[in-house]
């Protein structure tokens, strides 16, 4: 039992000690609106503001309160509200789709059926309870000032080859998510482990070359921008592309061996007070207008001819893309033993505890 407690504590990321609070809050629409929609998400407010703004302005008399949370805290608070059965958010949107799927699996989500949800592909709709609303790539990010075109890794094999030499100048200057601190990092690493055997060689190469495991997309991209890191691995393209708008040196590479595609998952908690409004918001996000707004925030990335200039796509993008499907298979990664073993493997690769400061989230 003690063991299980420890594992749980790891999942909960220390929420037992301090009461979890949102990282940031924002409101859209008139403050005295008759109806309020409480949306909680892991998406940065800056990225998600456009779509909420648009919805609030199109739907009269509605105010959207948005709370930005860390993915594990968001799961905890949502699960706690589901168990308690009292007040709860009206919509929860998280990039940790495995946790979202677990919420739905455990009966914490309300079904919503509409023309928009019916047209979603099967991988982006589970039980009409969890919906994939975005399209984001897991990319390799580099700084074009610091890395010559010849050096740029276009696949994981390239990256492994780059890290192999003892005197590689990438030593200690490759960063990736700390999977213990970041739900998304864990999800990506676990999906990598499912996809190919390269994952073993990759983390071994990371370990030998002293790669940095750290937290949070923003910090990692900052590091690439200021030259602390030459390469960041498995970063969400949405953040990288947003930064590239300000800093044209930032370039995102979708690896051609395979590129994970994440669809941020939205669900309506069972005890939400405004299910109809939440459903309307969901349908809006899936509509043309909503998708255009998400696209402008890089949450839906286009990989056709209109792809952003800062995104380097493989030659045949569609065969390289591996969508992370919303199926119960995601629950495997959340299994206590599975997670403990996987984290143990990770730790043995990064013996020096990341290398940066202790992560905040």
């Amino acid at each position, binding site marked *: 039992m003690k063991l299980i407690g420890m594992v749980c504590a790891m999942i909960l990321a220390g929420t037992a000690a301090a009461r979890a609070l949102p990282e940031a809050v924002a409101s859209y629409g008139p403050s005295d609106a008759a109806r309020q929609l409480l949306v909680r998400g892991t998406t940065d407010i800056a990225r998600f503001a456009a779509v909420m703004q648009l919805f609030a302005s199109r739907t009269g008399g509605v105010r959207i309160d948005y709370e930005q949370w860390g993915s594990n805290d968001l799961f905890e608070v949502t699960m706690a509200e589901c168990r308690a059965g009292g007040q709860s958010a009206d919509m929860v949107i998280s990039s940790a789709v495995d946790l979202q799927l677990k919420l739905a*699996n*455990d009966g914490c989500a309300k079904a919503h059926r509409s023309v928009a949800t019916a047209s979603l592909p099967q991988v982006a709709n589970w039980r009409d309870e969890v919906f994939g609303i975005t399209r984001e790539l897991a990319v390799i990010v580099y700084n074009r000032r610091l890395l010559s075109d010849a050096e740029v890794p276009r696949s994981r094999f390239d990256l492994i080859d780059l890290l192999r030499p003892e005197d590689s100048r990438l030593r200690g200057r490759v960063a990736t998510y700390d999977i213990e601190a970041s739900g998304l990092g864990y999800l990506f690493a676990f999906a990598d482990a499912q996809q190919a055997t390269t994952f073993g060689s990759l983390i071994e190469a990371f370990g030998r070359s002293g790669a940095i495991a750290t937290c949070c997309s923003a910090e990692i991209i900052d590091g690439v921008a200021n030259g602390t890191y030459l390469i960041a691995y498995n970063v969400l393209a949405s953040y990288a592309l947003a930064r590239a708008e300000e800093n044209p040196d930032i370039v995102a590479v979708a690896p051609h061996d395979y590129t994970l595609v994440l669809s941020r998952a939205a669900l309506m908690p069972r005890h939400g007070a405004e299910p109809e409004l939440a459903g309307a918001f969901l349908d809006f996000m899936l509509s043309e207008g909503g998708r255009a707004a998400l696209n402008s925030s890089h949450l839906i990335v286009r990989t056709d001819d209109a792809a952003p200039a800062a995104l380097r796509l493989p030659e045949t993008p569609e065969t390289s893309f591996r969508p992370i499907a919303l199926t119960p298979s995601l629950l495997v990664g959340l299994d206590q*033993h599975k997670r403990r*073993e996987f984290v143990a493997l990770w730790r043995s690769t990064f013996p020096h505890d990341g290398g940066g400061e202790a992560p905040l989230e």
Partner: protein
Amino acid sequence: MKTRARHGARRSGSVSFRLGVALVLVLAIGGVAVSLAAYAYGRSAARQSYDRLLVGAANQIAASLGLRDGEVIVDIPVSAFELLSLAPRDRVVYAVFDDRGQLVTGYDGVARPEGDGGFSSGSFAGEPARYVHVRRQIAERSFLGAVDVVVGQTTEARRELAQQITRNALLAVAMVGLVISGLAVLAVTSALRPLRRLEHDFALRSSRDLTPVDVEVPQEIASLVAALNRFIGRIDRQLRVMRTLIADASHQLRTPIAALRAQAELARETDDSKEQLRIVERIHERSRNLSRLTDQLLNHAMIIHRADSVDLAPVDLRVVASEAVAQFDQTLPGAERTVRMDLPEAPMVCDGDALSLIEACKNLINNANTYGQPPITVFVREEGATLCIGVRDRGEGLAEEMWGDAGKRFARRSGVSSASAGLGLSIVSAVAQAHGGRMAIRRPDAGRFEVFLELPKVREAEA
């Protein structure tokens, strides 16, 4: 009651309606039975297929069990859950328990099952769910005991598959029902068509047309048509007998009655009492002949009528013979010429109408008495498959060239004789035909003449 009287037939509902009701009943009962069977089958098929996925996933998890420092380590393969994801909308729950019943990993809400394994039903997250329990025995130095793996899944996909199977089966049943109904309508219409043809035939018939119905009909109502034809034939024959009787009577009776009248008028105008007496004697003679002629005409009509209307029953021809002789003797009281009988010991039984046979026999005796030479013998004998009853005398008999026409009416003379109307042999012939036999004439040797009926013997089994 009025309808009945008017149509002259009792109506017991429409055949089409009754067939329709029967068909609807059969289809309804069949449909319900097939639906129930299909639902039961669909449920068990869905249960079996998804149970296999469930147990497959549980086995994969059980196979992934390992030990480290005496502790059970579970390394759940993703493929196990991909297997479960084949039910795309169903929730999944699982738990692994060690030998002390402690949860190793998985959902803590799952009850640790009793027993060595198997399926059970329960619920998860407010929905009905199916659980499988797989037990793996581990015998290592550091761990000796059983590890229980429980995997559960909600039952939405099962319900859907069961409904789909049922739906498809019902669709098939509905199609078959439609086809059967269509075929039944065709079959009923085509089965009733001969009856319509029959109706049409009768409607078009003139009131005097008593010919047999000649309409193409299937085997099933052929017997009905045959009975109808027999009925029509009987009416036809009886009408013909009636017509013959009237024609014969008018033709045969007019002359003797006219003669009688002439004699009577003669007698009235004669004063000579001797002459009157002679005329009266002649009147008496003629009226006796007339009475015999009338008898024969009526007998002939009666025989032919009886042939159609009386059921044949086993008759012993010896009895017929003796009865005929007895009746003949009565008509000639004090006759010096008695009739002999030649009868076998054993009964000679054939199917027949005793009255007609006696009449025929009497006619033969009469003929022999009138035209033949004594002694007259009535005989009954067996000839192979036929029985013969007839009369033999010592006279010349009929000339051989007249034998062929002997059975026809008034063959001997066109007019009427003083003694016979010439109907005797034609009555005999008609009786023989009514019994399925024939009249035969034979001259076994000179000075012997036989006229007899050949009748089919009753078969032993039926006798």
